[in-house]
């Protein structure tokens, strides 16, 4: 497959996902939850007279939403195709499944990032708190890297869940633990020491620390290595996801379990 046709495939899959999400509002529930979470976290910081933590309260719902949509929407992409009865016909086309997953996951991730705007607006309108971004460039680049890493991780999830008989249980168990390991609300540095090494293999922990630092006036230390950690772990997700999809497709073609993998 040439680069151009791969890009066209990604674009088509992205358009398809956008059209599907417009017709499937239930997949966007996490975006409805984000403002509510923001209200809760901001109310806590206000009650505790910790206005300095308002940035944390705004970031946390966004990080949770990005992860939740990656887990519940992107992670189910292949499984949904299977249940819809379209997976076999799709695999019979010249476009590799990986290309389709890439385009679709990219759109879900991009939409999930809108939650940061929602949270910021809740703080501004609901609490009269304007969250300043002293390092907008770093913030934007980190968000971009976070999106890429999330898309990569979601690809790995999509491959994993299609193999799991009870994917829903698996998905549920991967939500809250990763909010902790990813430092969504509580920075990893404040977690028990024995837990911190586990956090550092989760790209979200690097991303949330960087995003929080970008909201503080102080200079952001070790920017490049930390961005590299976010991207590196994301790329590992892509590689694992693509390798997994390769293996899955090979296995189901051999075993004949495509329709009920």
């Amino acid at each position, binding site marked *: 497959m040439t680069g151009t046709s791969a890009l066209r495939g990604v674009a088509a899959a992205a358009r398809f996902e956008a059209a599907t999400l417009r017709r499937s509002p239930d997949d966007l529930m996490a975006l409805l939850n984000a403002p509510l979470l923001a209200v809760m976290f901001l109310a806590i910081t206000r009650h505790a007279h910790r206005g300095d933590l308002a940035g944390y309260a705004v970031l946390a719902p966004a990080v949770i939403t990005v992860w939740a949509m990656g887990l519940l929407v992107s992670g189910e992409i292949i499984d949904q195709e299977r249940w819809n009865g379209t997976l*076999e016909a*799709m695999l019979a086309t*010249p*476009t590799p499944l990986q290309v389709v997953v890439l385009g679709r996951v990219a759109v879900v991730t991009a939409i999930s990032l809108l939650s940061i705007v929602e949270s910021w607006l809740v703080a501004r309108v609901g609490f009269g708190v304007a969250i300043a971004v002293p390092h907008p460039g770093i913030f934007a680049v980190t968000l971009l890297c976070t999106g890429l890493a999330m898309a990569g991780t979601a690809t790995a999830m999509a491959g994993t869940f299609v193999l799991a008989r009870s994917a829903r249980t698996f998905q549920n168990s991967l939500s809250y633990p990763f909010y902790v390991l990813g430092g969504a609300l509580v920075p990893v540095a404040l977690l028990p020491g024995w837990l911190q090494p586990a956090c550092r293999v989760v790209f979200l922990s690097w991303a949330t620390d960087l995003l929080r630092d970008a909201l503080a006036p102080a200079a952001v230390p070790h920017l490049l290595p930390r961005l590299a950690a976010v991207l590196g772990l994301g790329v590992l997700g892509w590689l694992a996801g693509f390798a997994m999809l390769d293996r899955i497709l090979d296995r189901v073609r051999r075993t004949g379990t495509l329709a009920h993998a």
Partner: protein
Amino acid sequence: MAEPPPPAVSAGQLTRTFQRTRKAAPVAALDRLDLTIDAGEIHGLLGPNGAGKTTLCKILATVLLPTAGTASVLGHDVVTSTAVVRRLIGIVFGGERGLYGRLTARQNLRYWSALYRQPAADGRARADRLLDRVGLADRADDRVETYSRGMKQRLHLARGLIGDPRVVVLDEPTTGLDPVAAREFRALVTELRAEGRTVLLTTHDMAEAEAICDRVSLIDGGRLLATEDPRTIGRWLSTYERVQATGVPPQLAAQLAELPGVAAVLDQPGGGIRVETDAPGAAGLVLRRLLDAGVTAVGTARPSLEEVYLHVIGQRGLRV
């Protein structure tokens, strides 16, 4: 001297087994199947449920690997030349699933067109043409989930054709369709032959196979039993016709059993009898005798595929 063009579909000693559980013995869905389909023909693959029809379709569509043997599409091996085969073949699965219900028919086709790597403008034009052709142009922007089963099946066919395939595989496309929708669908299929496409149609409906196919292969238990002219199928249908009647006195039933060409007279669970024939014209003879005796609650029915298999294959002793 130029080599003859490769057949549209070729299978040699094609075998596919499935291991249901680790301890169970493998089950053969295809058992050393040999099949050749010439370019431009509508080839029927006739067989009961579990005969191996869908397995063959999936192997040809490259979504299932054979356990042994070979299969090729227009000379390209389905295992080693997967990418080429996928550009040449279009597959249509029967049933209501396999479409994106929340999207419109137009959105569905445009997406599939992109997956077949057609330029966007070409894909749009082709989607519009196909929607028109399958009679869905007026409903093209309605969600597919609001379609009837017949409309969905026509959209399935359009989806199978969106990549402009030279070989079209239709896996029981008329299952569950009402007679009118099935007839419309068959008309569409015959148009494909006029365009020079090759069609492999799987079905368990002998009348359907007789109506539109150029040749019909019978398979069962994963094995090719015979490849026949569709007229032979028609002959079987009339030869093995059944007559059903109620209110038949036992003496008359016994007389019917003695008529030439009557294979069996069976009592029906709800009362009445069923007369099975195995010779052309025998059903007419039975009908005449019943009417002469004043029995008017009579009807005829075409034999089931299983009955024909029992007669035909039974006579041949599986030596085909």
